[in-house]
């Protein structure tokens, strides 16, 4: 069972990202789950989304998980919320920030000794898609860090999922995914 927790602000596309990831993985015959914690809070409020992936049918519906990966797609959340909650020794972190990994760990001592990767998903999204929607770049970074799928296969799959969007936006997302894939450290 692979478990992922997303830290995001409402409106940044974590739910869409989690569902998109689940959709891609599902096409490879694995079983998936994508869900989120919602409250009545509106755009801008901190929220979490989740993925589960397994070879077996997923029965577990508890929201509690010890994630294998933590995605943080908003740079401020690593400071304002505890992104390490319910962690395990092997938990990997992919964090959106303009800082270097070292500087980030210095700024947030809770990350010390953990496997932390950084990438500026917001910057990439702004420069490619033109809007600060960091969900698809995060998935590009995840492909690099996890080595889960070949990046070309992943991009092709995401093209299908983004299918209803204008071509220009789909193309920009592809560039964003590739850039995050290349730039994550």
């Amino acid at each position, binding site marked *: 069972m692979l478990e992922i927790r997303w830290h995001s602000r409402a409106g940044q596309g974590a739910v869409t990202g989690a*569902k998109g990831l*689940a959709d891609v993985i599902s096409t490879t015959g694995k079983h*998936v789950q*994508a*869900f*989120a914690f*919602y409250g*009545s809070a509106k755009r801008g409020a901190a929220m979490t989304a989740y993925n589960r992936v397994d070879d077996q049918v997923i029965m*577990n*519906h508890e929201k509690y998980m010890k994630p294998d990966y933590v995605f943080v797609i908003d740079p401020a959340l690593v400071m304002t919320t505890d992104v390490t909650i319910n962690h395990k020794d092997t938990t990997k972190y992919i964090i959106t920030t303009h800082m270097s990994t070292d500087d980030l760990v210095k700024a947030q001592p809770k990350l010390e000794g953990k496997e932390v990767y950084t990438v500026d998903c917001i910057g990439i999204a702004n420069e490619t898609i033109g809007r600060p929607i960091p969900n698809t770049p995060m998935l590009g970074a995840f492909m690099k860090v996890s080595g889960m799928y070949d990046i070309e296969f992943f991009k092709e799959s995401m093209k299908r999922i983004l299918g209803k969007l204008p071509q220009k936006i789909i193309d920009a997302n592809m560039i964003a995914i590739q850039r995050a894939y290349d730039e994550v450290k």
Partner: protein
Amino acid sequence: MVFDKMELREVEVWDGNFAAAQALRQAQVDVVSAYPITPSTPIVEGYAKFKADNYVEGEFVMVESEHAAMSGCIGAAAAGGRVATATSSQGLALMSETLYQASGMRLPIVLNMVNRALAAPLNVNGDHSDMYMVRDSGWIQFDAFNPQEVYDLNLIAFRVSEDHSVRTPAIVNQDGFMTSHTAQGVRPLTDDEAYGFVGAYKPMNDMLDFEHPVTHGVQTEEDWHFEHKARQHNDMMTYVVPKIEETFEAFEKLTGRKYNRVEKYDMEDADVAVVCMGTSVETAREVAKEMREKGIKAGVVGIRVLRPFPFAEISETLKGVKAVAALDRSAPGGAAGMLFNEIAGSLINADTKVILSGYIYGLGGRDLTKAHLVDLFNELQANADAGKILTKQQQFIGVRGPKLAYL
């Protein structure tokens, strides 16, 4: 205008709401009369969008309240066509008057109920308070534990509800957010297969048959009311149950997916078991398997059909069990939980020594963790070993503060 069919993949990743919307589309529902409420809204939004994109023909009436939503459904159903809507929680509370009218008038309607807590305090998350509130409203109630089942049970619900021997509206329950907003793999039927299974709507006593004017919604007093209610109950007990069984069988033939009014998991030799509904059934199944690895013969019973209540099946299922827990996801309001009571009723005259305890859990979307369930199974095993209940009969789990236990 001819509507377009939709090409679906063998496995789609849908949340429970979208699965329901797809089922409504494939059933080619004629009228959806609805009012939005979290977490059920995406179901009717889905129908509206399918209509906007020419994937379904029908009327979508976005009314001004849930009460009007069901009023419109009743008028549309009486007129003679396929009708569906969706609601949750407070919306259901506002709508509840008309639920009794729909069932009393024997009008087939499918209501997707995305289970959510009832205020106060206001809460949008999943528990079963709304499901419990209308349990005696005369509607058939199905319960889905995941998005696949939401999809399947919607198709089943139309076929059962519209059958001329049944003509009783049906609710398809799913857990708010935990199912409604959780995307999982769903194996849909093709549009033709799905519509073929549900079947074309066959009108009965339809107002729009101008050659046979009908009066729906009469007044009765002491002189007639009891007979009409008795008939309604009799039909629920005698016609609806076999029709559900028959439809489950037909669905299995088509898809290989077998539904039962009572779902039994690892129950053949179970010493201890939990009875629950919604997503909890699946989480409990996983924990039961883990308990078995630790030597505790644990099983899980899921209530697939809450109404008509599977009275005999429950007592049969629990016959050899030593200790069983009823898990109620609804504030009991000064009583034992509904499932506790229904199960107690099913067992009281059965030849069994099973020890029954009740747990109140998960209110307002509070997580039911695997750890909770491990503790619970251990508690049941202790009861089984002792041959008597060692705790109070009713306990609250997963709530902050001093332990709550009663009865």
